[in-house]
Structures are given as structure tokens and as C-alpha cells.
């Protein structure tokens, strides 16, 4: 009994060591940028990585904080109307992309995963082909298409092109989800005389909620971070999205590469996503366990 417990303590220790490693690996670059976003520009370009903690030969925490950290970069990005406009733009484009991709994608996935449909294979292959094209290669074709439709430099136009990488993924993953649900669930409902659409809406869709949330989240992040299409299809300033604006960031002081501002802006665009994950993490876990255990 005693031996067992030492072994389990050791295992537990190893386990937590692994957890710590994963935390450091995932978070260090993020924390490093976070730290960089608070450092004065002149200290960013020096190989002293810590703030000047020693003062008059003595260790002085207050001095280090007062002289080694600053809110300047955050002030300067929020004083820039272009950055604020880009934030709003990104929210609209990414949000709408997710809604369209999930809406159309999940009903399509339901048909492919659950309903009798002759062309499942061809449709899935078509969807897959869509994801295979190098984005560089479709760029000029999409550009022509948007011009023809009069959607160049508009939000609906950008949203349409974002479906290229969000729809196939949604359809694929959701088809897997629908397929993995047990058959008995809907059979009972059909016996009671429910219509296929009702079965989808009232029984299957709630069960796939965790899948919807996680694919929606991934689609949102992909759209939020997309660069090439946004750079090419949105040319005037009120239309630009955050990644493009960050990449063209000038900062207040043209004498220095605006590294601090870039880091601050990156933190501002990353934090909402982290919050989204925090909120939906609960839903993913709860929804999944409830669905899986009861089902």
C-alpha cells in the first residue's frame, strides 16, 4: 500500500512536470511579447532582458518598474483611429464568416452525415478539393470574381472569400460529428412521427453543440488572423482588418521600428480570443459531458 502511494506520488509529480512544460512552451512567446509591449522602446533594442533593477548599486524593485515598464505603446495604438476601425472591421468580418460557415456548413453536414444522399462522395471530394488549392494560386481568380460581382473592397466580398477555408473545415468536422451520434436517438423520434428537419433541429443539433462551438471558434480565429486575402481585397483604410494594419503599423515615432506598438496591438487582438476560449471552454466541456453521458 505504502509502495503504491510513493509510486503514484512520483507519477503525479511527473504529470505536473509535463503540465508545467506545456504551459511554458505555449505561453513563453506570448508572455515575452506581453512583456515587450510594456517595455520602453530604447530598452527593447538592447541585450539586457531585465528592467534596470539595480540603482546606485542597490537592488530597487520600484525603480525597475518605474523605469523599465511603460503604457506608452498601448496609449499610442488606441489613439490611432485606424487601429480602432480595424478592430471593429475584424469583428464584423470574422463574426459573419463564422455565422455563414456554421449555418450553411452544419446543415450540409447533417445531410451528408445522417441522411440518404447519393452524391456524398463527390460532394465531400469537391469540398476537399476546395481546401487543397494554394491560396496564392486562387488569388487572381478571386480578385476577378470580386470585381465582376462588385464586391471588391467590401466586407461581404471578404466574407465570401473567407468561406474558402472555413466552410470545408466546418463541413468535414461536423459530418464526422453527426456520423458519430448513435442511430437510436433519432429512430425514436421518427417513430413518434417527427420530421427530419425537426429531428435535426431539436435532437441532433443540441447534441453537436460542443462541436459547433469548437469549429466555430477555430473558424473565427482563422478568419480573424487571415492576412493574404485581407491585404489583397481590402485596399482603403476604413476597410482594413487588424493583421494588415498591424503589419503596416508605423507607431508614433518613425525613428524606431515600432516593435513595442506591434506587440501591444498583438496583445489587444489576442486577448479577446483568449477570453472567448475561456467562456466557451466551459460550454465545450459541459455540453460534451452532458451530451455524451446522457446519450
Amino acid at each position: 500500500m505504502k509502495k503504491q502511494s510513493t509510486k503514484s506520488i512520483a507519477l503525479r509529480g511527473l504529470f505536473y512536470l509535463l503540465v508545467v512544460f506545456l504551459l511554458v512552451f505555449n505561453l513563453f512567446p506570448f508572455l515575452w511579447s506581453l512583456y515587450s509591449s510594456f517595455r520602453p522602446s530604447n530598452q527593447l533594442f538592447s541585450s539586457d532582458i531585465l528592467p534596470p533593477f539595480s540603482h546606485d548599486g542597490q537592488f530597487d524593485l520600484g525603480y525597475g518598474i518605474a523605469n523599465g515598464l511603460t503604457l506608452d505603446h498601448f496609449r499610442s495604438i488606441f489613439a490611432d483611429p485606424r487601429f480602432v476601425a480595424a478592430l471593429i472591421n475584424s469583428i464584423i468580418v470574422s463574426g459573419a464568416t463564422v455565422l455563414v460557415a456554421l449555418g450553411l456548413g452544419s446543415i450540409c453536414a447533417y445531410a451528408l452525415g445522417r441522411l440518404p444522399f447519393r452524391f456524398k462522395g463527390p460532394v465531400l471530394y469537391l469540398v476537399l478539393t476546395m481546401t487543397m488549392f494554394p491560396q496564392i494560386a486562387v488569388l487572381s481568380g478571386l480578385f476577378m470574381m470580386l470585381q465582376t460581382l462588385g464586391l471588391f473592397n467590401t466586407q461581404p466580398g471578404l466574407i465570401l472569400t473567407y468561406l474558402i477555408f472555413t466552410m470545408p473545415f466546418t463541413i468535414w468536422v461536423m459530418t464526422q460529428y453527426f456520423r458519430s451520434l448513435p442511430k437510436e436517438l433519432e429512430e425514436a423520434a421518427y417513430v413518434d412521427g417527427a420530421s427530419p428537419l425537426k429531428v435535426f433541429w431539436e435532437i441532433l443539433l443540441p447534441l453537436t453543440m460542443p462541436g459547433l462551438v469548437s469549429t466555430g471558434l477555430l473558424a473565427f480565429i482563422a478568419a480573424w488572423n487571415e492576412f493574404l486575402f485581407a491585404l489583397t481585397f481590402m485596399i482603403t483604410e476604413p476597410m482594413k482588418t487588424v493583421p494588415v494594419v498591424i503589419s503596416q503599423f508605423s507607431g508614433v515615432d518613425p525613428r524606431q521600428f515600432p516593435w513595442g506598438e506591434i506587440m501591444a496591438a498583438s496583445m489587444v487582438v489576442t486577448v479577446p480570443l483568449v477570453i472567448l476560449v475561456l467562456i466557451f471552454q466551459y460550454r465545450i466541456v459541459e455540453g460534451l459531458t452532458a451530451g455524451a453521458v446522457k446519450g
Partner: protein
Amino acid sequence: MNASHLIGRCFAPKFLLAALAVVLPVTLQAGVTIRILGDSDVGAGGKWMRAVCQEWAKKTGNTLEYVNRPKDASDTLRQCQQNWAAHSPDVDVYMIDVIWPGIAAPHAVDLKKYYTDADLKQFFPRIVENNTVKGKLVSIPYFTDAGLLYYRTDLLKKYGYSDPPKTWEELAEMAKKIQDGERKDGKNDFQGFVFEGTASESITCNAVEWIYSFNGGSVIDPDGKVTINNPNAVKALDNAKSWIGTISPKDVTTYGEDDARNVWQQGNAAFMRNWPYAYSLGQASDSPIANKFDVSVLPKGGDSGKNAAALGGWNLMVASYSKNPDVAADLVKFLASPEIQKRHAVDISLLPTRPELYKDSEVIGKNPFFAKMLDVLNNAVSRPSTVTGSDYGQISAAIYQNANKVLNGGESGQDAVVNIERVGKQILQ
């Protein structure tokens, strides 16, 4: 956007009348929207240009939308080509690199009809010639550029030198001495010489300078003969290789213009090769190196070599797909006018394209080095863009990939010139 457009329409006549009376010789349509793809916001150029364009809009009663170009020149070219291929009326005026007229020509309005011959004579003839493709004046010179050697006057003095280096050999020797001395004093990150070594157009300019300075020619001569494969060109490349890890950091082969300037601007380098834009940034009052540096011509390759500076610069063109080419041309004329170019030079130290401005006391007062620039510009070496036309991208890529590879130790200078020669011959056959 609509609201401002409407306001523009309502008030335009008043402004127009005023403007007509004062400056404009041509009749303009009132209150149209002009979009200009101008300088990048990285560095000072974009901010400056944006403000000046708005001045024009206010003066003429038009609406101006500024399109910020990507930082990277190649990305900018991609964006331009895409718009041109689609015959897109979305952008009226483009700021194009001095090496692009061959590519841009089919999509440009001939600007000759907006200028008299006498007007055109006031620009550097060489640039106007560069911008004229098969008799069509594709673009108007906006600002010009030439590679310069930046050096730290205080450090030269400290280590007993009175003048900047005359040859690359001297530069290497001086850089080494200063670097060793500064590092001994505890500045471990101090570098002797920084330049643009990254595999892009940046190193193409540097390589063309090195080769020309060693009497190795200009890669392809104006008659279309590929001249790169010669012993002097090999010597020039191998000489640059010898700097890596001795007076230049090893990752200088990943540096673009601003990477090099970052090291320099922090006071961490004795010499730098860069464009004139770094001058006013370095002399700003809160800059660590203010009043501690000067600029000079780039060194010669050996005593028999030449001082070489790559010719750069940007020009303004009107797209033939523009719905209001006359209004767009008016903006171009405004931006290239002597008054605006003078302010450009005084405010952010960019080189005017009108020789007369190099004698202007205010311009020289702010940028003493401009006095030497006329000579530098007259002797500047062009990249082989005219002779290769729309295939310039290929020869440039061959130069920058091979030069970068030489610096990284991936191939010898001899292999590099053979490879560049092959691509050059392919293009010109």
C-alpha cells in the same frame, strides 16, 4: 464616407474658384474621389505624404483616399500588378519604384500632355529617360535615392581616423579596429559595418554597388550584353563575404533597410550602408547618435575602383484605368512641384528630383550632405531594369538569391556570377 463625399461636392466650387485663380492652369471637374497608393507608413514617408495629399484635396475640393502600400516593395508590386491586370479603376495614382516603368508602361497614362518640354527639363534628365518607355512618359520623378556610407564621426576620431574610408579594404580595417576597441570597452553587441543583406531587392542594390565599385560592370550593360561573369565581379562578391562574422554580424544576411538602421540608430555600429531617409531620423534631437555621424560616398573597390551608388527612388504614375485621369494628373503635378519637393527634402531628408533644389539654402541647411549628392547622383549606377523591362524581377531575384547565398557561405562568388549570367542570358535571348 458618403457624407464626406457630399460635403466635398457642396463646397467644391468655392475651393475650385480659389484654386483656379491661384495655381491651376487646367480646368478640373469638381469634387471627385481620387485614390493614391502612396508611401508606406513604416518610416516617415507615409505620414508625410498622407498629410500633403490631403492638403491638395482641400485646396482643389476633391476627396482623397490614401492607400497605404505594404512595407515590402515586392508586395507593393504584386498589389499594383493585380489591380492593373483587372483594369481596376479603384486606384488612380500609384507611387512606383524606379525599376518598374517597364512593367507599368502598358497601364499608364502618357503624362507628356500635362508637361511642357521646359517643365520636364527641370527634372534629372536621367530619371525622366528611365521613366520613358517607347516614347511614353510613364511616370514623374517624385523623390530619388542613392546608396550612401554612414559613418560615426566621434568613433573615427576616437580611433585616430580623420576621413571616412576611401576603399572597401580601408573600411574593413577601420571597422575591425573600432569594433574590437568598443567590444573591449564592454559594448559586446557593437558591430563594425551593417548593411542590407537579406534575400530581396535590398541586397540587389548592394551587390550592384559592390560589383560596379570593383570595375565589374553593371550585371547587364545597356546594349543587352550580360557582363556579370568577370573576375572583378567575383572579387567584389568574395570581398563582401569576408565581412560576415568579422565586421558584420552573421545574421546581416537577414537584414532589410530598417533592420540595419535599428542597429545603427542605437549607436551599435561604426558604419552603415543605407538610403538617405536614415539621415533625418538619425539626426533627430532625441536620437542617441545625433550630431555624431556623417555620410559619404560608398568606398571604391581597390585604388583603381569607382565610387558606386545604386540609383533608387520613387515615381508617380496615373493609371489608364482611372475614371478621372486629369484630376489624378493634377495631384501628380502637385506632389512633384518644386514647393512640395522642397518641403519633402527639408522635413524628412528625401532627395528631390529637381537639380535646382540642391542649391537651395534651406534644403542644404537642413541636410548638409545634399551638397555632395548632385555628384553622387550623376555617377549613380542603375540596376539593369531598362534593358530587362518586365522581366527585371527575374534578374533581380537571381542577383539577390545568389549574392545572399555567397554571404551565407552556400556558394563561391564564381558560382554566383555563373548562375546570374545564365538567368540573364535566358531573359535576353
